[in-house]
């Protein structure tokens, strides 16, 4: 691996990590995509050597292949690219769905609304609550809105 490719990988990876730590979901996704591309570049540079086309049967020394470019690196990079593409597509779909349901792309706002969801789970739309009479005796339902629903 020469210095240039190492630097390129480092810069892309660093930018990706920086974006990953942002609050905005779009930036996070771009960060993930950058990191996955850095990983692909890293694979390529890990086995980078120029040589004859790796077509079987090799002209040089059989399977040990002196002076032949390493085909495995290219195969791996291609596979990793495709997988990265599929994952990026799926993450974008998820983010769209999250945006459509939460109305925001800000991670902290999403976390806040998740917290609210978790607390109000089953309370907002639970017609069965009044069928558990001992709940009220324990003083657990100090939420006035809930009690009115229970009385109804």
């Amino acid at each position: 691996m020469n210095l240039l490719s190492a630097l390129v990988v480092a810069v892309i990876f660093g930018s990706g990590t920086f974006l990953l730590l942002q609050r905005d979901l779009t930036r996070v996704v771009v960060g993930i995509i950058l990191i996955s591309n850095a990983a692909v570049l890293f694979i390529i540079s890990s086995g980078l050597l120029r040589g004859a086309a790796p077509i079987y049967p090799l002209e040089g020394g059989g399977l040990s292949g002196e002076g032949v470019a390493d085909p495995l690196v290219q195969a791996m990079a291609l596979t990793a690219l495709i997988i990265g593409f599929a994952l990026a597509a799926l993450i974008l779909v998820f983010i769209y769905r999250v945006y459509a349901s939460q109305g925001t792309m800000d991670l902290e706002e999403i976390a806040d609304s998740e917290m609210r969801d978790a607390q109000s789970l089953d309370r907002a739309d639970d017609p069965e609550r009044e069928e558990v009479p001992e709940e009220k005796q324990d003083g657990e339902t100090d939420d006035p809105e809930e009690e009115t629903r229970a009385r109804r």
Partner: protein
Amino acid sequence: MASVFENTNWMLAPILVPLAAATVAFLLMGIRGEARRNAQNAVGLAAALGVALSALALWAMVSGGGPVRYELGGWEAPLGINLYADGLSVFMLITTAIVGGAGSVYALGYFSGREGEDARRKEDLQDETGSFWPLWMFLWASMNGMFLAADAFNLYITLEILGLSAAALITLGGTRMAFSAGMRYLMVSLLGSLAYLLGVALLYGSFGALDLATLGEAASPIPPVWAALALISLGMALKTGLFPLHFWMPAAYTSAPSAASAILAGLVGKASFYLLLRVWFDVFGGSAPPAAGQIPGVLGAVAIVWGAVMAMRQTRIKTLLAYSSVSQMGYLFLLFALVSGAAPERSFEAWGGGVYLVLAHACAKAAMFMAAGVVIYSVGHDEIPRLRGIFQKLPISVATFAVGGITMMGLPTSGGFTAKYLLFTASVGTGQWWYSLVVLAGSILAALYLLRFLNPALIQVPTAKVYRDAPQIMSGTAFVLAVFSVFLGLMSAPLFELLSVGAPFPSGTMGGS
């Protein structure tokens, strides 16, 4: 040995059968209504049966003739792709066959709701598009592929398929929480596998090989290898949910439909743990500094206590179970510290104990998530304070919880007992007695957090109304799986014999006993 077991083509079956079933089930999504459900159920059950049979065939093959290697397309290792099965691989295949088979049967009942039938919680709506079976079959194929893969890059590919299908399974319910949990899981899973990929690239750059056995021979204690070890461990700790990287776990396990939660908690976390186990001992066995195992060991010990304490504070069954998973996953990571202890003859005990806990915990935790699913299906929620006296209405589910709890606590005859006993003796035998205290404390804490649900569930008070009856097949499957996990302790001899085939440590006195 029967001649039918000598054919190494059996190794393809655990991967190809679910893969084919996934494709067929996906195509069947085009049909509407009842016909699609019946057809998909038939395909799924046939695949579960096929995986179980091929796992048994591989068991006979491996315990009879040692580790098996299969060259795909007849190409040899440096160029071609190999499959490799040793005791650990077959053990994991059997684990998926048992838990996955039970999960498939459970899903028959879980997704059997008629369209338009009232469901209290949106996340437990019926699987209206029929997406469960294709996703679950892809997940199963990727897990089996991971257990049989012989080279580092194929492990990466199976890892990614695993993450993709698991993330989609989490969001099957289509609720807001499910989507944010699924998105978080997908990001975590992608980062974890990218860390693994970087590690693989480092290994390939250093030794020019991807085959695990070749890498294991070539690996030497040089800085790139340590960096690779650190990257791979970090990635897998992230995907397995080792403390403090477990942050995605409770939301993911809670917001998935219970049939999927059972599979996720029982199997998916274990698959990335298997990968770490495989790479750590097969590739880095000789070249990792012995102190490296202390890092996952200490984090695991913290996870045991932290997960249990958090589990005690939960008010919903499914989050309680998810934090209990954080705690139980901690036990698995103890083995990395224990095998590198002062007494090498104890290594197999620690390793085998950890691996055995994978099976025991998978069965028990899947059964308990299934039982939680029955509760949600029948009552419409899983909030513990509102489930007092639920034993009167759902006796089998509460019994499943109690019986599965026996394994969680590690009481005798359960698989959890065997595993934790081995971890305990290994920690005493290698002079790392402080880990034995954690093992004991974890069991006591497990009892405490399980009683948080069982105690209110068993009292005689007017209880919540059951507004629809769960199919018998759901509670029945959960109960059978829980009972199985309790008797695992009695069946350990043949399984440890299997594990000793191709194990990274000499089994010594343990193997045949």
